[in-house]
């Protein structure tokens, strides 16, 4: 095991930046925004697993597992919401859902 923790964190931060950039840039498509959130959560999981390998305890891997359960709950709700919104407005563009003037 000769992978430096710094390089793992650099990879995770690059992944996180890409996910956040995807969420910021793709305002015209809810599904691509959700994909950006997935990428960000994966970067967080990578940090947890890297820290678990650094200190040799299982807690970090456990939190990665909990993040995975959280993500599956979030995705199921969010995609149900996407289906509901698509049924109402026939689009997934977030700029159309402005009836609350937000």
């Amino acid at each position, binding site marked *: *095991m*000769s992978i430096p923790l710094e390089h793992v964190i*650099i990879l995770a931060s690059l992944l996180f930046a890409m996910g956040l950039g995807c969420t910021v840039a793709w305002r015209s498509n809810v599904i691509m925004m959700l*994909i950006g959130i997935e990428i960000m959560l994966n970067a967080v999981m*990578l940090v947890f697993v890297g820290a678990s390998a650094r200190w040799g305890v299982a807690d970090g*891997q456990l939190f990665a597992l909990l993040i*995975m359960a959280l993500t*599956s709950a979030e995705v199921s709700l969010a995609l149900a*919401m996407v289906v509901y919104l698509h049924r109402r407005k026939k689009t997934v563009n977030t700029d159309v859902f402005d009836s609350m003037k937000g």
Partner: protein
Amino acid sequence: METIVFYILAAVTLVGTVLAITARQGVHAIVYLVTSFFALALIFYLLGAPMVASFEVIIYAGAIMVLFLFVIMMLDLGKPEKIQTPKLYDWCPAILLLVVITGSMGVLASRAATPLNAFAGISVQEFSFTLFKRYGAAIEIISMQLLFALVGALYLGRRR
């Protein structure tokens, strides 16, 4: 050896993610992302987490991404001419963000990289012992959260 494999997998992950977030079609984005997640699962395996690696393949690449694919196909969002892609103007905040992250990474990389200690990985036995002995309450809360998500998804998806 492990280090070389790690850098190859890191490159595959980054390239897959870049292709995913710039893809014009949703289905292409999902397929690139599955590639990226497979490489990430192998990185988890290299970091001594075989359980997390297998769950990454089974749950992320196998279930969540297929759910995305299912919704894209059900709502017929696969037509690129109907969906407006972000212009260069829209990518400006993302590029600014990348510059900030690169700067902070430069600070991180200027330190001497210390390799990880000799570490054989966490066995399934140790993992499940910690999971059910020390974090039993977290398992209960997560199971209730999944139940709430199920009820919420059923409520949102019902026909009226």
